[in-house]
């Protein structure tokens, strides 16, 4: 029996649909710049406040996948992290409002679904977790559905 097989169905079933405790972050200018430096995206809209203002925004904007830096629940407690190996299967992002430096963004996540499949890696579980990001005006700015694979 692999380490992975020891994750019981009941643990998984208990986890589906349970929302994490909300965590609120302040989006810092330096956080945005650090992220864009890391991914090699030097678009001035992420650095120049005056450019952002000319485009009708109150501050520099965060790039679309910056929200990955704002963690939801403590991931090591999530059942998908109890498996042997973990791979990123893909993402679906829906964006509703710009994310700006100075915003307070609250993250809540929940496990949506778990599917079992057999592929080239053998038995795999495919986990889909949703992250909902809400700003200080109670507007949902983005929803990220993140699929990960354990084997």
């Amino acid at each position, binding site marked *: 029996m692999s380490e992975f097989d020891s994750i019981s169905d009941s643990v998984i079933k208990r986890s589906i649909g349970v929302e994490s405790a909300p965590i609120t972050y302040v989006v810092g200018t330096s956080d945005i710049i650090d992220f864009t*430096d890391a991914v090699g995206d030097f*678009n001035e809209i992420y650095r120049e406040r005056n450019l952002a203002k000319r485009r009708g925004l109150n501050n520099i904007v965060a790039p*679309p*996948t910056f929200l990955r830096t704002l963690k939801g629940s403590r991931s090591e407690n999530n059942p998908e992290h109890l498996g042997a*190996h973990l791979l990123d299967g893909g993402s679906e992002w*829906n*964006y509703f409002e710009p994310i700006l430096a100075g915003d307070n963004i609250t993250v809540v996540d929940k496990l949506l679904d778990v599917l079992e499949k057999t592929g080239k890696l053998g038995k795999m579980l495919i986990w889909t977790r949703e992250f909902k990001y809400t700003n200080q005006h109670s507007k949902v700015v983005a929803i990220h559905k993140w699929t990960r694979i354990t084997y």
Partner: protein
Amino acid sequence: MYWEDVRIGTEIPSLEKYPTKEMLLRYASVTGDLYRIHYDEEYAKSIGLPGVIVQGGLKNAFLAQLITDWIQGSGRLRKLTCAHRDMDFPNSTLICKGFVSRRYRENGLSLVDCTIWIENDEGYKTTPGSAIVNLDSRPKNIQS
């Protein structure tokens, strides 16, 4: 660029990225994703991988940049998807590409659907995806 300037089949200017091992480490640092398959060569090989692999999130960021570089201040990204069909490795060229697959108006918005992907240096599509972009519509007093 206005919505009216775009046609089905319009190509998105390609974006070339060259993720180095340093870039993978920096991405791991800013996202707090410290899974060792992205920076520890020995560990990656010990679990059957050819070596360290590029983070899915980093490739996701590259595809987002493909779109935001293209639209600049002409619109907003509404939806972005990607599937990590195969692994990519550091110190190799990844090319992000795409084209407009649909152009339509919906709920008062001028939208385009885009088919996007990342190709490795052998031309293989490792990371297919899609985007929906809301482009500005040309004001009536401005001619093309």
